[in-house]
């Protein structure tokens, strides 16, 4: 544990000082950190899943608090929690399926729980499975203590197994951790290869003699355009420079190095040029549950221009960017204000911005937000590593990747688990 604590503190520092750039790097490092937390965590014989979930939640809470604007951290924490629950469930179903009915009904836990000792194993497994799906109309009328059911099931399964075979028990506890770590490895693999998987779909969307507009620089967009170029599609790219960081300049350079015809424009010229564009392809910082997009500043402008001229607005986002939260005030709560020095030269403007002189409050304020919120109605298509989707389809992906219990990552004080 002290080993992981050092790692955790290290990572927390990096997050707080904004040393890690980009959601992919953040996501990968978060996943690796959680993997070491899980492998170091000692689990008791019963209710291993609960212990793992607690450990991950404890670390996750700190990570999210360190940089709340970097949503990828929270996403990965929740993905890992969902993985733990899923692996536990599949192990439990396998275990219960192996037992006969009498063993289950003999179990005191079962009797206490719903006083109905004649429930078949299939019914218990079905009830436990429903805990993983978000609450739905189907499960509305079913038994209420659903979130507590999973650990209880696993513990009752563990107990009755213990009655028969004790060797199985220890192997089962090792199996859960092993399975979880394997699944987390797959997750890391997915994060690392998300660019390739998205780029594979480039050929379906970019056809001949097209004009594509993008803003700023996104590695996903770069790979996407390269993949289309590999497949011999001919197209031109308009790059909006993306003030104040001017990352569009870097993107333009890379595109030219690859042999693509590129035009560089200012952000203010987007409305003027949009009518000559066939498609807008951009990257995103995060995608919210309602289909809204948190993107580098200036994106809302491009999206509005695209809507006005009926140009498809395509957003490329890896699945680690998908966030299960609904934005209720995204311009404020999910935004970061960066240094004014990116806009103004301190030397020239030192008089106007002087906090020390006079009344202590200067007349000139500089606001430099890092992100923009694009509402879902402006987005035509999301391309993720699983394929192309409508903004209104995002909730489905969220239901696949996340559990409803994990929306608020907080270690529960009660001993419910």
């Amino acid at each position: 544990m002290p080993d992981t604590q050092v790692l955790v503190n290290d990572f927390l520092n990096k997050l707080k000082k904004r040393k890690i750039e980009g959601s992919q790097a953040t996501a990968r490092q978060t996943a690796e950190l959680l993997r070491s937390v899980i492998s170091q965590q000692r689990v008791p014989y019963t209710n291993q899943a609960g212990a793992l979930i607690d450990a991950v939640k404890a670390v996750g809470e700190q990570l999210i608090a360190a940089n709340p604007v970097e949503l990828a951290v929270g996403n990965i924490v929740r993905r890992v929690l969902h993985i733990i629950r899923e692996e536990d469930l599949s192990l439990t179903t396998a275990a219960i399926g192996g037992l006969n009915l009498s063993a289950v009904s003999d179990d005191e836990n079962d009797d206490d729980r719903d006083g109905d000792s004649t429930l078949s194993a299939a019914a218990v497994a079905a009830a436990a499975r429903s805990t993983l799906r978000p609450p739905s109309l189907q499960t509305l009328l079913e038994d209420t203590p659903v979130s507590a059911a999973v650990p209880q099931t696993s513990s009752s399964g563990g107990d009755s197994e213990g009655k028969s075979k004790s060797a199985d028990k220890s192997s089962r506890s090792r199996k859960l951790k092993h399975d979880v770590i394997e699944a987390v490895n797959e997750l890391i693999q997915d994060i690392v290869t998300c660019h390739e998987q998205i780029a594979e779909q480039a050929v379906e969307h970019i056809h001949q003699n097209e004009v594509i507009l993008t803003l700023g620089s996104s590695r996903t967009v770069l790979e996407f355009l390269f993949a289309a170029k590999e497949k011999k599609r001919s197209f031109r790219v308009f790059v909006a420079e993306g003030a104040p960081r001017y990352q569009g300049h870097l993107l333009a350079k890379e595109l030219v190095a690859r042999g693509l015809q590129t035009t560089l424009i200012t952000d203010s010229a987007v409305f003027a040029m949009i009518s000559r564009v066939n498609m807008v392809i951009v990257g995103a910082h995060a995608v919210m549950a309602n289909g809204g997009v948190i993107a580098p500043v200036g994106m809302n402008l491009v999206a509005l221009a695209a809507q006005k001229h009926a140009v498809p607005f395509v957003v490329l986002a890896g699945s680690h960017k998908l966030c299960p939260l609904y934005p209720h005030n995204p311009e404020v709560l999910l935004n970061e204000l960066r240094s004014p020095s990116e806009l103004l030269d301190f030397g020239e403007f030192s008089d106007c911005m002087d906090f020390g002189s006079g009344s202590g409050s200067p007349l000139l304020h500089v606001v430099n937000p890092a992100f923009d919120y694009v509402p879902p109605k402006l987005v035509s298509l999301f391309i993720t590593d699983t394929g192309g989707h409508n903004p209104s389809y995002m909730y489905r992906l969220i239901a696949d990747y996340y559990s409803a219990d994990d929306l608020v990552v907080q270690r529960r004080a009660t001993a419910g688990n």
Partner: protein
Amino acid sequence: MWHRSASFILDKNQNDTVYPADSVTLTPPPPSSISTPQNPNPNLNRNMSMSAYYQTRAAHHGVVTSDWLAQSQEAATRAVVTGGQEIVDGGKSGRAFSVIDEFNNWRKQPDLAEAVAAIRALAAVIRNSEAKTMMELEIELKKASDSLKSWDTTSISLTAGCDLFMRYVTRTSALEYEDFNSARSRLIERAEKFGEISYKARKIIAMLSQDFIFDGCTILVHGFSRVVMEVLKMAAQNKKLFRVLCTEGRPDRSGLRLANELAKLDVPVKLLIDSAVAYTMDEVDMVFVGADGVVESGGIINMMGTYQIALVAHSMNKPVYVAAESYKFARLYPLDQKDMGPALRPIDFGVPIPSKVEVETSARDYTPPQYLTLLFTDLGVLTPSVVSDELIQLYL
């Protein structure tokens, strides 16, 4: 003008002939509160079938006098007697009668949702039934649920609640219960628990919507929805600073009742007449409405005026939030306003209207999903497109 073709002439003739055959109508009680005991709209008595659902809602939330209430209750029981005898097929008269009776008893409680009343009534059917197998029980329940639905065709949460319970029964019987009696007692227990679920649902919805109410915001509310009331109550308890603009909600004036309740909570309230919504929309930050039913497209059916408000809000880019419990999801897909069964409610204009003049008495309208931003339900925060997904999972 009233319809797109001259078909309104044909419709009127049809209405006149249809009415006598319809035996489940309630004759609307004459208004007694006003000093001039004139019948303000003679059309009312002629071809009006008053929606029982809206009558009950008016009884709960509108500003009514006790006379009117007593007369409406009398009219309701009179209709039940005639209705029960009509619906019955020989032999089971006692049971069909008691379902509707039972339902009415539950429904009279102001705090209880429609669907909960329906499910409790069905639970009573199970209790009184003498079936020995699940199939028999299911058949009885189906009959009872059909009679409930046909007694009041206008109430969507009633239909949805009955359907939900029937689905649950069908699915539960598929699980192996070795003993019929234990299965039966479990069904009854779940049905009674449903009342708690509905209570908890309102709390969950209130908690989910807290984040969306920020300090200093102005909320526009239409009609009296108990769920929205819960949302605002919780926000007030959490010491959020907000103010509420509340439409009058003619003709049952449920907005006045809401304004009363909010004033008790020390929330600043401003009353508007229904026509003043567009006038005040630019100072509004969000619109909060409840729903009588949520349909498959993700749109809602709610008190008359909701569609109007949603249109105005949409054109001024204000979010429209709907607070609805999940058992209000119904398998309807209205294509336009007239596509639903009519739910009529008499309007008292205070002065006599000549008999030649028609009155639009529909009590509800349909708001299409593109004007709604988010739905707060006990299943979580949903966008309108999720609703059909949920319904498909349940019914298919």
